[in-house]
């Protein structure tokens, strides 16, 4: 053992070491102060930002997207609440047990629910997992009533876009989709965020800025485990505007039913305004599928469908017009005085141009044919000859003047322009001159000629209204949620064609007799309700050289397309109708009856409407007449 207390004083060496130490201690403290200077003063701003970020979360409150109504206020699209099934694993003692119970209750596969949990293994704490979106009403009730047995399970209400008429007006209304990465990049400034829905097609896309509700949000302070502590700021969500269309849902329905089981398009226009009353394209798709989140498989099925259900045939389908193109020839010939209405040309069943023989659809021919008979009986040889007299360039001029070969400018994406050939086009496209032998085909709407059903509809409306081409439109007004007017739309003239006196009169008399005359090709459209005027068209898909085979006997894919273009009533017309049935055979039998159905429906609705009319509509029509 060492001796106890020595009471020995400390020596000079000890003191020297202490003095050194004082400087060392001071240096250490200076270092710490320096470190704090760096953190708090030099980098303070950055750390302040980080600390704000740490504790503040943004919670989105979706603004409800505006509803869409037809011309008489009937609902076409709305956003009713739907229920998402959520799980907060932190609130469930044993999430797996809860999920098994839930699967049993809802009759779902428990693997699917457990999979959702496993997939979100690395989510931040206190963030809910979406087990299933937009569950059905039965499941909602089941979850609500068994709440006590399902700790951690909850329902979240979310507006879900709904299209009650499903595919009936899908091409017009379009659909929503989740915002893509490229879109998000472009639109972030306008308040779009990840996971937002955006109009991807049709009206939903075109009216995106009006229909879209402004998302509200809550700035929520959370603690380190993600629990909400309090709401710091709140931005109210603003519902989107509502849109009122010119579409008549009932008429749309009739057109849709008329095309049931067929591929084609039907368009109904108001002749004095260009407003679209109905626009249907079949086959169609259900936009609700997109609203609930389309699966990859469903998307692939739609894309791979040979019938291309996404294609809007009314504006995107380009078809040879066939005999309905004779209307253009008839107008051109009268306007250019190549013939008088009384001028008679002989039809013996065919016409030889160079070394080619152009046959008439009627074996043996029509004999002597004048303007009226030429159109009513749709004599090909008569129009071959008009074509030769006019030449392809003059035909093309009139076709374009009447709105063919150029887009109508309807406010829908993807419209096609069709094709009206002339010598310049031929030179440019093929580097060849135009051969006279090619003109007869053009004269009867075959060869290179192609048009869209919508172009034909505007053309027919112009014939019916005295020569004015209107741009087709279908949105009448946009109103905010509280009913105040945001924007109103009206008829827009493309041009008025200055027809010579008499031209349209002769043409319209002929078109009336196509339907109502004893030998008219469109007799099947004849109605007891209203006098209809129109023109049939049978567009060849494949050129049948020299042979005439009944269309019904051909394989489906090369059967003729059936056209019928019409307006009614034939005096003081109100509506123009275009029917196209792909591979529908002869226009007189394949398309005319459909047009009749739609036109009759229009007038029967109009009869009922006298009681329903809201005044606004009449004033609009008067306005249209004044135009």
């Amino acid at each position, binding site marked *: 053992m*060492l001796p*106890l*207390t*020595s*009471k*020995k*004083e*400390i*020596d000079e*060496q*000890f*003191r020297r*070491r*202490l003095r050194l*130490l*004082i400087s060392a*201690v*001071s240096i*250490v*403290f200076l*270092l*710490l*102060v320096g*470190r*704090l*200077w760096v*953190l*708090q*003063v030099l*980098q*303070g*701003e*950055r*750390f*302040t930002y*980080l*600390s*704000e970020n*740490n*504790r503040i979360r943004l919670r989105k409150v979706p603004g409800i997207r505006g509803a869409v109504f037809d011309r008489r206020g009937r609902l076409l699209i709305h956003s009713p609440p739907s229920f998402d099934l959520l799980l907060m694993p932190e609130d469930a003692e044993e999430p797996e047990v809860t999920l098994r119970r839930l699967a049993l209750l809802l009759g779902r596969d428990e693997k699917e629910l457990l999979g959702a949990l496993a997939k979100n293994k690395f989510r931040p704490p206190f963030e809910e997992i979406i087990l299933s979106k937009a569950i059905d009403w039965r499941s909602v009730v089941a979850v609500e009533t068994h709440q006590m047995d399902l700790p951690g399970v909850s329902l979240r209400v979310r507006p879900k876009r709904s299209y009650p008429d499903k595919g009936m007006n899908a091409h017009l209304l379009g659909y929503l989709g989740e915002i893509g990465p490229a879109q998000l990049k472009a639109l972030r400034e306008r308040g779009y965020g990840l996971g937002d829905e955006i109009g991807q097609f049709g009206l939903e896309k075109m009216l995106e800025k009006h229909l879209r509700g402004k998302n509200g949000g809550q700035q929520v*302070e*959370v*603690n*380190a*485990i993600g629990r909400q*502590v309090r709401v710091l700021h709140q931005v109210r969500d603003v519902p989107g505007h509502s849109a009122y269309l010119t579409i008549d849902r009932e008429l749309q329905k009739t057109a849709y039913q008329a095309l049931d089981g067929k591929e084609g398009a039907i368009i109904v226009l108001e002749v004095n305004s260009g407003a679209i009353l109905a626009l249907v394209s079949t086959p169609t798709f259900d936009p609700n599928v997109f609203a609930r989140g389309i699966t990859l498989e469903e998307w692939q099925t739609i894309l791979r469908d040979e019938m291309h259900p996404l294609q809007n045939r009314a504006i995107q389908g380009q078809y040879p017009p066939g005999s309905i193109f004779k209307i253009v020839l008839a107008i051109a010939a009268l306007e250019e005085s190549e013939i008088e209405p009384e001028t008679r040309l002989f039809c013996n069943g065919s016409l030889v141009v160079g070394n080619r023989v152009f046959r008439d659809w009627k074996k043996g021919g029509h004999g002597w044919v004048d303007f009226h008979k030429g159109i009513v009986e749709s004599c090909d040889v008569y129009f071959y000859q008009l074509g030769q007299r006019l030449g392809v360039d003059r035909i093309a001029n009139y076709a374009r003047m009447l709105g063919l070969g150029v887009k109508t400018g309807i406010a829908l994406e993807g419209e096609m322009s069709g094709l009206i050939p002339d010598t310049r086009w031929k030179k440019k496209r093929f580097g060849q001159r135009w051969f006279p032998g090619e003109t007869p085909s053009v004269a009867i709407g075959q060869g290179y000629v192609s048009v869209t059903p919508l172009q034909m509809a505007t053309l027919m409306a112009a014939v019916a209204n005295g020569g004015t081409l209107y741009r087709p439109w279908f949105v009448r007004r946009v109103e905010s949620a509280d009913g105040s007017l945001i924007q109103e739309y009206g008829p827009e003239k493309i041009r008025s064609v200055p027809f010579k006196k008499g031209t349209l009169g002769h043409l319209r008399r002929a078109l009336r007799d196509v339907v109502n005359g004893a030998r008219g090709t469109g007799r099947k459209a004849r109605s007891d309700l209203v006098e209809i005027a129109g023109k049939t068209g049978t567009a060849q898909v494949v050129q049948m050289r020299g042979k005439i085979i009944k269309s019904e006997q051909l394989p489906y894919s090369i059967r003729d397309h059936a056209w019928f273009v019409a307006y009614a009533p034939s005096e003081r017309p109100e509506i123009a109708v275009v029917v196209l049935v792909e591979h529908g055979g002869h226009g007189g039998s394949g398309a005319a009856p459909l047009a009749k159905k739609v036109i009759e429906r229009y007038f029967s609705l109009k009869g009922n409407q006298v009681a329903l009319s809201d005044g606004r509509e009449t004033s609009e029509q008067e306005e249209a007449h004044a135009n």
Partner: protein
Amino acid sequence: MEERLPSRKRPMRIDRRIATHFDWSLFALAMILALVGILTIYSATRDSIQEGSGILALRQLYWLVIAVGAMVVSFMVDYHRMNHLAYHFYAGVLFLLFLIPLFGLVSGGSQRWLYLGYFSLQPSELGKLAIVLVLARNLQFDEPTGGYCLKNLWLSFLLATPIFSLILLQPDLGTAIVIFIVFFSVVLIAGLHSGSFLRLAAVGIVLLPVGWQFLKAYQKKRIWTFLNPDLDPLGAGYHVIQSKIAIGSGRLLGKGYLEGTQNRLDFLPAQHTDFIFSVFAEEWGFVGCVILLGLYLTLILLSLRVVRRARDRFGALLAFGMTAILFWQATISVAMVTGILPVAGIPLPFLSYGGSSLVVTMVAVGVLINVSMRRFTF
């Protein structure tokens, strides 16, 4: 604590002269720092989810009363009596440390506390005092010329090893490191032979990789993440990053008392113990931190003055050991939460929540006052 036991043979007598030399500045500094600690603990735990509002601050206040009592005892008893009682104290602490693996409370993966009815005791804190006492007793005699060689120090090493090892095994890496550093600080100030110093350093460097093997996985991870905190921002690096965010966001003047968002929303880990400085820094800013560090520095410099003026070598070594405990814990703790050193859980003296730590800190100050006021007695 043995010092608390009144001795019948030598009743405590305070000389008037001793009382006049009472070191009020040390006492005042300690009290100010302890009160700052209670206020900061209140802020850190006010919205605590596990504990009720203010309970921990109140508990720390009770501990402060006990700690001041312990401090009074430790400056009343003539420090020369500590020379006699050094080994008794050492044996008692060693005994308590041995009890821990048998009866200790397990918390957070380590076993550090002995539960004593109304409170729990952390014997590793007392280990720091025991080491200083033993060293002061062993090294109080004249320094050999050229300093102590290893052969002069074998007893000190022998006595320090079980305490160090038991604490390391708890595991309480932070306290073990402090004991290690305090031990060598005292040896160095007492005078270490330069050759021995080099030899010790060489052995240390050789043992470093061996020691690495003994570290727990989470401790290794802490060191790795210290070297690169962004490696695992939501995992092991989380603590340091959140602590730096808290301190940095305090900026020049702080967010204001009770306004620290990092702290209040529980982003800070162990906010009332190891990370108490971050809480303080967030709320008081750079200015507050400089003042706080100024208080610590003043305390250390005053303590070193006590060492220099100590009447004898034993008193000087004792006072120096206490100074070393305060200095190293304060600077290492701040260095850890500011990201200068890897985090190993060292409480900040006076400020961190914890009764044992506060008692030991106040006792250290008490011993310093003791040595200071007895510098003129013979």
